[in-house]
């Protein structure tokens, strides 16, 4: 019998409550029960006709089926902002009283079988293979670093250990963070300061490209300006991955004036940012915005780009989806084959866990989704996960070590 411990704080970040759960699963952790995933599509229904409880009921049914009578330790729920979260989450919580439920709004949802918008994707981790789960909701309205710090303190209270003392070979974090207030860098820094060697993987919540408001939830606590942090202690192998389909052109731009809080570059190499960027691409400034998708900027680490995607021009300035600082040097990227590059990253991740994955959670950038949609690659995208129960969502930014853009991040569970 596999015994797991689940921790969460049901009412406030200052009053951690812990509950132990005994799995009802037959057998031992050696049986490697796969993760369960579910996809619910709104299809042609309009938002006003949706019954979130009914939709959640279908999702819960499919997850239970996938769990093969195993108890769940964690349910990750990704839902369109068209769907009211309260009844959705309440139904999932009722269906999985033994599990922690973490959720967020999206800019599209997918599994290894389907991708779409306006619906729901979900992933349930079986109790088998998970030794402990802890989760905290970070309120970010009073400041992102402070909120991140509260979440860290809550997690440490639940786990009875400093996060930095957790063995990174057995622990991994998942971050679902607000997608419209620009707090991702500060939240990632707060988590990094607390646990520099712990991998925390995640994505920024979306709202179907409205950019008006997103939500994250830990159980019934739903926040329009917050972050959910989950820490898992796993018994089996796992690996994190990051992939983008860009390579450097070798053309470098040094940021000589910036407004980091507004994620804005004012000058590259002492020149107006838009003009210098356009010159690096060899196009007039009037054409620059049309090149943003194919030619973002990358901060290079050991030859690997960490993408900073341009969002728009503001006069001579370039506004990014990610923070950059004065003195940083970025390189202009050239786009490659999104499907081939992602497949290679996934294949490598699967190999790292021994070749027989139990499942995966994936956070895929909205800009990649737009490319997938434009080029009709939806089936090729979901097909990459074939044979591996997978769920994820299209994000307003990805997290791994820091906030990044035009990337897919994820965890493959072995």
């Amino acid at each position: 019998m596999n015994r797991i411990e689940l921790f969460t704080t049901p009412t406030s970040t200052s009053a951690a409550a812990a509950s132990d759960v005994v799995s009802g699963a037959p057998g031992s952790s050696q049986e490697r029960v796969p993760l369960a995933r579910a996809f619910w599509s709104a299809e042609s229904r309009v938002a006003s006709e949706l019954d979130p409880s009914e939709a959640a009921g279908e999702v819960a049914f499919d997850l239970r089926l996938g769990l093969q009578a195993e108890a769940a330790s964690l349910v990750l729920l990704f839902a369109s902002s068209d769907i009211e979260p309260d009844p959705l989450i309440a139904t999932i919580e009722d269906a999985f009283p033994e599990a922690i439920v973490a959720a967020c709004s999206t800019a599209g949802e997918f599994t290894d079988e389907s991708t779409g918008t306006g619906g729901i994707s979900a992933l349930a981790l079986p109790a088998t293979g998970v030794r402990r789960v802890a989760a905290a909701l970070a309120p970010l309205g009073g400041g992102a670093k402070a909120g991140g710090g509260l979440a860290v303190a809550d997690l440490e209270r639940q786990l009875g250990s400093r996060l930095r003392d957790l063995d990174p070979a057995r622990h991994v974090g998942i971050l679902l963070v607000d997608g419209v207030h620009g707090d991702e860098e500060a939240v990632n820094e707060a988590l990094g300061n607390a646990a520099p060697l712990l991998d925390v993987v995640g994505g920024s919540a979306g709202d179907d490209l409205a950019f008006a408001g997103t939500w994250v939830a830990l159980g019934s606590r739903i926040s329009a300006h917050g972050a959910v942090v989950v820490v898992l202690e796993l018994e089996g192998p796992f690996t994190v991955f990051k992939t983008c389909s860009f390579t450097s052109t070798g053309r470098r731009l040094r940021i000589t004036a910036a407004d980091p809080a507004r994620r804005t570059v004012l000058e590259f190499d002492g020149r107006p940012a838009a003009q210098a960027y356009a010159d690096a691409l060899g196009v007039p400034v009037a054409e620059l915005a049309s090149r943003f998708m194919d030619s973002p900027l990358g901060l290079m680490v050991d030859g690997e780009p960490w993408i900073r995607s341009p969002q728009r021009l503001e006069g001579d300035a370039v506004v990014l989806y990610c923070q950059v600082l004065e003195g940083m040097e970025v390189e202009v990227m050239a786009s490659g084959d999104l499907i081939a590059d992602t497949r290679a990253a996934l294949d490598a991740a699967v190999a790292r866990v021994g070749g027989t994955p139990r499942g995966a959670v994936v956070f895929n950038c909205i800009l990649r989704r737009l490319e997938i949609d434009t080029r009709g690659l939806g089936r090729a995208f979901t097909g990459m996960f074939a044979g591996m129960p997978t769920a994820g969502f299209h994000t307003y930014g990805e997290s791994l070590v820091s906030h990044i853009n035009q990337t897919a991040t994820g965890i493959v569970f072995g």
Partner: protein
Amino acid sequence: MAVHLSLETVATALRALVGETAFPSITTRVLLRTGVNLRSPRPDQLANAGAVSTVVGALSELGYRV
């Protein structure tokens, strides 16, 4: 905490503090936060007092006093 005049001595002190296994992860975090690559510093940053101070500060936030 020592006074560092260059990124090379910061890197040496960090390596001695955290070991070879953790060194790449920590320096990646520092690079993404500061733009300074401790593993392969840009020539203009190598002995730049501002860059050294920024990196020492970032490491301190991460819990590593070098």
